[in-house]
Structures are given as C-alpha cells and as structure tokens.
C-alpha cells in the first residue's frame, strides 16, 4: 500500500512540473468557426498500469477521444482488469474486459490552445468478466472459519460515471497528459446465487455502489 502511495505521489509531482512548463508555450489560436475534421486522441492510463506491478490489481486501460465541436469531445474507453479480493473471510477473483462510452465538455480552456484545459463529462460503462468466489464466509455463533465456495461463472455489470479532469499538451508535441477522476455508481449487475459482487473489473471494489477511479493518461493526438 505504501509503495502505491509513493508511486501516485511521484506521478502527481511529475504532472505539476509538466503543467508549469506548458504555461509558457505559444500556441496557435483556434479558429472562431469550428468545423469537424476527423481527429483522434489515443491515450493509455500509465498510473494504473504502473500500480499493477505493486498491487493485486492489474488494470490496463486506454481511450480514444475525438473533438466533435469547439468544446465537446466524445470518448470511448476500453480496458482489461484482473483483481482479487481477500478480506473478512472472502476469497474472490475477477477478470475481464470493460468498455465505456461518453463525452466531456471543456469547462475552461487555455486561450492559446483550446485543447488544454479542465473538463467535465459523463460515461456509461459495462464490464463482462469471469468471477470465482473460492470462499464466502458463513456467519454463525461459536463457529468460525466456515466458508462456501462457488464455481467460476461469467457475469456482467453496468455503471455510470462522471468524469472530471484536465488535459494539457506536452511542450509543442502531439502528446498530451490527461488526468481525471471518475466518481462512479454501480447501476446494475448480474449475480451468481444472489451474491453481490465484491469486485467488478473496471469498477473496482463494489460492495458499496459508489466508488472512485483515478487515471493518469499519456495521450497522442493524430
């Protein structure tokens, strides 16, 4: 846990230094009339990729976004998550693919570069995964250490998430750094034997319906 915190801290410090440098960059003015031309930004979440080396959760996720008018961008996320849950007598494991689709609105942009700035948006997300509950505790007085186990099964979960973040160009290159947080709410999940899933790939810990995600992406604009 400590290593993860240090890792996240190092990432944050790095992002501060990048922010400060880009302020001085001279950028072309965006034309007043915006016309859609095919444009894509592809990003990879390096923070979660990195923390995967130190924690039980391995998550790879990336996004493709396109600017559809002056301030609105559409975005699709795709990822793979492999996670375990071992706590309070539970021993569970889940792995699978997830996808999100949504859009975001540039709340405030750098006057010199319309692609830099803060944004807010929303996404609909779904996850299709394999889960295995090797142990679920049975509660009874004077009887500790009694568990039930279940066969692996395929399940799916759906959630909505908000998205708040910032995107900033790295010097004058086509690379961007995109940092965002995703408060999310689990709307629907299929269940095995009525068991509420403890972890959902892409969502995280799901014993409560609310969760918060954090991602730190390096993106490239085509």
């Amino acid at each position, binding site marked *: 846990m400590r290593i993860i915190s240090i890792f996240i801290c190092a990432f944050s410090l790095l992002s501060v230094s990048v922010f400060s440098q880009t302020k001085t960059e001279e950028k072309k003015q965006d034309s007043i009339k915006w016309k859609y031309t095919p444009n894509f930004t592809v990003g990879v979440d390096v923070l979660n990729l990195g923390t995967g080396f130190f924690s039980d959760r391995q998550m790879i996720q990336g996004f493709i976004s396109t600017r559809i008018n002056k301030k609105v961008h559409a975005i699709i996320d795709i990822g793979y998550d492999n996670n375990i849950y071992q706590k309070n007598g539970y021993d569970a494991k889940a792995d699978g693919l997830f996808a999100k689709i949504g859009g975001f609105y540039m709340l405030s942009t750098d006057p010199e570069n319309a692609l830099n700035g*803060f944004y*807010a948006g929303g996404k609909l997300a779904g996850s299709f995964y394999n889960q295995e509950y090797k142990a679920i505790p049975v509660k009874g007085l004077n009887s500790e250490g009694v568990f039930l186990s279940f066969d692996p099964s395929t399940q799916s979960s759906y959630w909505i998430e908000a998205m708040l973040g910032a995107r900033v160009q790295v010097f004058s290159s086509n690379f961007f750094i995109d940092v965002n947080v995703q408060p999310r709410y689990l709307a629907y999940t299929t269940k095995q034997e009525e068991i509420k899933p403890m972890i959902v790939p892409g969502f995280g810990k799901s014993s*409560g319906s609310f969760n918060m995600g954090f991602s730190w992406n390096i993106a490239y604009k085509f």
Partner: protein
Amino acid sequence: MKNLIWIFGFLLLLTSCGSDDDICLGEESTPRLLLKFRNDSNNLVTTVDTLYVDVDYGKDTIRNIIYSANVDSVFIPMRIDESPYTDIYFRTRRNQTRSKVRINYEKNAIYVSPACGFKINYDNLNAELLESNAVQSIQTNNTSLTDENNINFYLRF
C-alpha cells in the same frame, strides 16, 4: 474554477459514504435453536434451577456455552459446517452425567449481504435423545428454524 473545486469536493463526499463491507450486524447471522422446559410429571412449562449446556462443534473439545441458574429457555447456536446434526449435552449439576441430544436437520445457505456473507437456515429439525439422564424426553414444537421467534423443542426434566 471555484465551482469545480466544489463539484469535486461534493463528489468525493458522495463516494466516501458507500456502505462499509466490514460490519455485519448480529441479527443477520444464523438463527439459534430455542428450547424451553417442561416438567416431566405434569407437562407444565417450568424453569430449571441450574443448567449447563455443552455443544460439540466438531472441534477437539466439547464447548460449554451456557451455565446459569433459574432458566426458563435457552438459545443454542448450532453447527453451520457440513455436519447434518449437532450434538448438545445438558446437565443440571456439575458432576452429573450429561444427557445427549442430537438435533438432525437440513441446512439452507442464505445470502445476506457483502458484510455478513451467508447465514444458515435449518429445516426438518428432529431431536433424538441419545442418552437420557436429566432430560427425560423431548417434545417437538417447530421443525423449522429461520428466525429466533419460535420455540423449537421442549425438554422434559
């Protein structure tokens, strides 16, 4: 910009009030067997002046779970593991030979919540008096155990 901080703060607050998966409240646990007592001679509900209850939970030793005076009823937690029965021992004096009662049942595992996991409900309860001494006989009252509101058996002393 200030608004952004407020929105962010609010959302952070929202995510932090999700239910905790650590706390399981007692009433959502496996229900206990409820026993009352009757006088063997006149079949009236009675109290027992001293009662020791020991239960075999499948461990190395039999566990004493109740030792009290002037009891009119007892709640006994039964086994929740694979065993199809629970052996319960009763005596009214410390050095008395124990009466052995075997409760047979069918178990149903019922999912409660992420914090509690599963609980067990028992059906088709059936009591056998394997060794009588203090307990003379057993009367069946309710053969299903899904909550702690019904008396399951009367022990006749």
